């Protein structure tokens, strides 16, 4: 529990700070507050890497706890990984605040070295800071994966191969397939190590170039690795949080979520598609090997199948006519599934190559991943926190609190996201400190929406503290 809460509280704290930064950025694009261009990009760099790191830290805390419930994990390793995260976050903040680094978190080579307005050390500090975060992430992935390999006796049974191919003999032997949350942990840790390897490779190449400019790097190669790492890392935050659905929704609905053959096979799909779907980030690189453009589109489509046919469908089957009470916890999980589906639909439209021509690097892209992260991953994390607190205190929140939180986070969120989508569809580019019309108008709407989200988040914070301070009477999840 200690590790889980350390990670989740740290992640949510970073989230809160980055939310404030994000509101400032949108208000600046609306022309409501003055932020000079250099500062805008420094803050945008911080907001991007900070949010992804926040979601990853919170999600890893949850995942680590769920694995630890079934297989003992060494806490000291989780604390060492936490130290890597903390060092990385501090170094990144130094690079931005004191070094004014501003080449964003998906720094495409040779950007952070050419035409910069910040000192070279800031680029180096940024690269090393992100590398430290990656190391912490990979350390947790390796710890979880190793523990799973140990307890299951190999990768095949960890992935449920023996269960799917030979179910009768498997069940006759009295064996059980891996639990859904363990499948999630296996997939996250394998893909995390692969994405981490891509990130470290391009990161080391860039650190080498930083130390010794004679080291040339192929720009197309760097772009592939950067997105393979970036997409995988960002996408996996969802699958970490999803593990919470499998455990918390059965508590809310008083029903059981079992591993079935479709669920196991669905996770195999996720294992593969998370790694190769990144090709959709390079649709507009016409020099990219043609076959992978086709693979990018079809794998982006197929990545949706495990979600809509298994996990969310299964979640809805749990909720349907279960007599579930609407507490903050269950509300967050349900709304998170909606956000996941809506954000995923936007992603699939953008992953359709003829549409990507109209949407690539417009505000549609942040529209999609803000839906996915704010109304998906973040809500699953909050859902987990509140289900835990509600279980522990055997208490729930009043309808008034639920309405304030709901209107703020979902209503304000919808307004905030809508402005991204509409402006993106109108072709307003992303990452513009000063946007062409109709960008500024929609940035204003977005700012209002984001402020409402802030109100909802603050209400949830107050309510969370109230529940946490109540005497523990119930069982832990």
């Amino acid at each position, binding site marked *: 529990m200690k590790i889980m809460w350390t990670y989740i509280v740290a992640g949510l704290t970073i989230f809160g700070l980055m939310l404030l930064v994000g509101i400032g950025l949108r208000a600046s694009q609306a022309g409501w507050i003055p932020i000079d261009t250099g500062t805008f990009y420094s803050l945008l760099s911080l907001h991007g890497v900070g949010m992804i790191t926040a979601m990853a830290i919170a999600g890893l805390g949850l995942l680590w706890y769920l694995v630890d419930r079934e297989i003992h994990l*060494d806490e000291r390793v989780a604390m060492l990984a936490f130290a890597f995260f903390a060092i990385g976050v501090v170094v990144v903040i130094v690079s931005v605040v004191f070094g004014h680094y501003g080449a964003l978190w998906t720094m495409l080579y040779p950007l952070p070295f050419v035409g910069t307005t910040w000192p070279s050390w800031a680029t180096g500090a940024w690269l090393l800071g992100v590398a430290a975060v990656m190391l912490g992430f990979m350390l947790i992935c*390796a710890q979880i994966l190793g523990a799973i390999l140990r307890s299951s006796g*190999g990768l095949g049974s960890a992935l449920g191969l023996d269960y799917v191919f030979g179910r009768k003999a498997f069940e006759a032997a009295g064996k059980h397939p891996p639990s859904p949350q363990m499948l999630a942990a296996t997939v996250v840790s394998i893909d995390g190590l692969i994405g981490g390897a891509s990130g470290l490779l391009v990161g080391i*190449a860039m650190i*080498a170039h930083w130390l010794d400019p004679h080291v040339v790097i192929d720009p197309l*190669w760097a772009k592939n690795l950067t997105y393979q790492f970036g997409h995988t890392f960002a996408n996996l935050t969802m699958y970490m949080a999803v593990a919470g659905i499998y455990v918390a929704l059965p508590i809310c609905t008083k029903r059981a979520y079992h591993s079935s053959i479709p669920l196991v096979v669905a996770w195999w799909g996720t294992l593969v598609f998370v790694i190769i779907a990144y090709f959709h980030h390079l649709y507009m690189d016409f020099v990219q090997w043609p076959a992978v453009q086709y693979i990018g589109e079809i794998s982006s489509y197929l990545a949706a199948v495990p979600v809509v046919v298994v996990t969310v469908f299964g979640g809805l089957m749990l909720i349907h006519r279960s007599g579930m009470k609407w507490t903050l916890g269950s509300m967050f999980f349900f709304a998170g599934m909606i956000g996941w589906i809506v954000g995923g639909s936007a992603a699939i439209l953008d992953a359709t190559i003829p549409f990507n021509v109209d949407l690539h690097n417009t505000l549609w892209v942040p529209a999609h991943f803000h839906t996915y992260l704010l109304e998906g991953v973040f809500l699953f994390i909050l859902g987990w926190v509140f289900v835990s607190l509600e279980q522990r205190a055997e208490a729930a929140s009043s309808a008034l609190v639920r309405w304030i939180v709901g209107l703020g986070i979902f209503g304000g969120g919808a307004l905030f996201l809508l402005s991204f989508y509409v402006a993106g569809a109108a072709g307003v580019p992303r990452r513009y400190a000063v946007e062409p019309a109709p960008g500024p108008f929609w940035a204003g709407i977005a700012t209002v929406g984001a402020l409402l989200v802030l109100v909802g988040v603050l209400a949830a914070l107050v309510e969370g503290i109230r529940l946490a301070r109540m005497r523990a009477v119930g069982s832990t999840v």
Partner: protein
Amino acid sequence: MKPRTFGILVLALTLVAALVPFLDRHAELPIWQHHLLHAGLLAGGALAGIFITARARGSQGGNAFWLVPALLAPMMAMFAMWPSAYNYFEAHPSGHVLEHLLLIALAYITTASAESYAAGLGWIVGGAMVFMAVAAARGFGVSFGNGG
């Protein structure tokens, strides 16, 4: 053949392959082929690490802090593949052989540490390391371009 014997055999073969820089024509290799050669050495060291350390599947395994060298060693191996250091190494074959031995040692440490924590993990961590080394051939220290 016992896994351990096989591992020692692979290690011996890899060590012999590390002596390639003493061949005359070696210096003419382009960077990308060089990376592939290094990937081969890493694969050899990694396999040796796995088979020599191999423990029974499903066994309790060792201390989780073995993961620290298992993750740091591949990073150091990528740094050791630093392309612009080649000029020096091309002029000094014995230095180059030392670099190759370092790569093999790092690969061995990677998988041996991972296997010490959990049986089977060496294949994944080692696989990721060899993937990095092979991928490096496409753009680390070299740019292909299409004439732009």
